[in-house]
């Protein structure tokens, strides 16, 4: 895509999510949609992280662990230490990234199904830790987390205190969508810069990559740390919106869903996880009307999609270019 086209596409996307969607919601009075769309935005941030681990050739079913760690990091800092939420958001991401370096160093040596199995266990370990550690307040979790406060710079209020807002749902929606846009813009740039090429070389042949001088161990850890950073940010924001976090806020099911989002959208496309999260979330809600058959229809559709569209939904684009 040419730079002008890219800019136009970005502007159109931002205009539709920041202006058109709030307008449509105001016109129809469907305020509940804010919560749904905010969830989609945050889940797609965490899914973007999983997508990046796919991009280096690792099946990651452990993003729930980092979402949980991120959520708790932010909640504990806000509730027990009175730190501003806006400060805890990057701290939660960085804490998850640091944790993932320690966890990733040994486990990233594993490939294929072995790595997948270990990451699957991570989510469960994180849940049990949240139950057992005194700092996380055990099974009752943390409730009534105060809403994000104001950001003031030189006496100018940049972001108002969320507690004083008339429509905090709209504010959360805007913040989440902006975060999502930033995260995907960063990811897009990363994948289309040299780092993306190196990740791809790792995905396709680690031995050859190291023989051309790529420090594969380092690159794997960096990609995994970025992935976990995104998981932590998503989790922290989620805890702030729900104003609560429990050991069961992110479970193995969530980890699996993050992975499914990537599959569904397309592993070869940066925006795959975003589309995947959107379709999967709304698809599940939509199927609610089918009552007891919800799960049956849902899983059958997923199996069919993976059989007939192995490269994901985005491969349906008429001008679908590989690795577009």
């Amino acid at each position, binding site marked *: 895509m040419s730079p002008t086209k890219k800019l136009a596409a970005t502007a159109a996307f931002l205009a539709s999510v920041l202006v058109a969607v709030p307008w449509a919601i105001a016109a129809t009075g469907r305020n509940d949609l804010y919560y749904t769309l905010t969830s989609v935005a945050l889940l797609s941030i965490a899914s973007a992280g999983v997508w990046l681990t796919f991009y280096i050739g690792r099946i990651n079913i452990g993003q729930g662990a980092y979402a949980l760690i991120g959520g708790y990091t932010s909640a504990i800092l806000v509730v027990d230490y009175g730190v501003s939420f806006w400060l805890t958001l990057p701290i939660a991401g960085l804490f998850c990234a640091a944790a993932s370096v320690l966890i990733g160093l040994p486990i990233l040596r594993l490939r294929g199904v072995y790595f997948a199995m270990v990451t699957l266990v991570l989510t469960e370990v994180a849940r049990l830790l949240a139950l057992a550690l005194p700092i996380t307040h055990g099974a009752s979790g943390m409730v009534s987390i105060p809403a994000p406060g104001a950001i003031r710079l030189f006496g100018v209020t940049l972001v108002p205190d969320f507690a004083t807002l008339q429509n905090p749902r709209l504010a959360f929606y805007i913040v989440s969508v902006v975060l999502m846009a930033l995260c995907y813009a960063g990811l897009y740039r990363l994948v289309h810069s040299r780092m993306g090429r*190196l990740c791809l070389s790792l995905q396709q*042949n680690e031995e050859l990559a190291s*023989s051309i001088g790529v420090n594969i161990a380092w690159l794997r850890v960096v990609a995994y740390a970025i992935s976990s950073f995104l998981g932590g940010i998503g989790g922290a924001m989620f805890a702030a919106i729900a104003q609560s976090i429990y050991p069961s806020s992110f479970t193995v099911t969530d980890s699996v869903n993050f992975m499914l989002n990537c599959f569904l959208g397309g592993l070869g496309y940066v925006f795959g996880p975003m589309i995947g999260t959107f379709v999967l979330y709304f698809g599940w809600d939509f199927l609610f009307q089918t009552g007891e058959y919800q799960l049956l229809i849902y899983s059958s559709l997923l199996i069919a999609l993976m059989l007939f569209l192995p490269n994901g939904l985005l491969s349906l684009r008429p001008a679908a270019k590989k690795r577009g």
Partner: protein
Amino acid sequence: MTQLLQVSQVTKRFGGLVAVNDVSFSVAEGEIVSVIGPNGAGKSTLFKVISSFLKPTAGEVRFRGERISGLAPHIVARKGVVRTFQETTIFRGMTVRDNVIIAHHLRSKANLAGFFVGSATARRDEAEFGRSADQILNFLDLGAIKNEVASTLPHGLLRALGIAIGLATDPTVLLLDEPFAGMNHAETKRAVELVRAVRERGVTVLLVEHDMVAVMRISDRIVVLNFGLKIAEGTPAEIQCNPKVIEAYLGSEDETIGLLP
């Protein structure tokens, strides 16, 4: 002549099996040296030890006097000792040109953050890599297929692509793992010329090979392994009439050891 690569008393054991036993030889700058031997002689193991994909049980490999055995493969590659692969190991999903461009990784002056923000150095690097990749591809007669996806290429071209990837790293020593395996007569002839042309570029070549005819034609010196031991070393003419070598290959047709033209 300066000794570029020195293999000293290298031994590699796998459990009770001694795959390489106390092998020593050296490679001088600008030479083409071949390691040959019957099946199971330990050629591939020795090759992996030299490229540092395996650690020797005893002994060491030195490059320009500096010990390289035991270092990570990417560090050995950074020092200038680069290997190609026996199987058609390439980045299958990328185009031929992208395969070669990515292999320029070692030459980049900008760091990853520079590439992320698109700094001037990074843009210069990208442009330079593209030019250099085109030049290497033309050099190896791959220019016409540079936009094909690598997985669709036939065997012989993949081998050439493997060499192109190796060349892109700007190596001092290129280690070729069975560059002529599975090739017919015409392909082998072309590949032999190609390896010579690589040497003309100032690259020292160490190759491990099965095809005796090609080896005799191309090598300055030959090292012969059998059951993990070095049984002979010398020029092609010396190797051809070495009784130990003939014995090791006994039962083979004369033609396969290159005794007949």
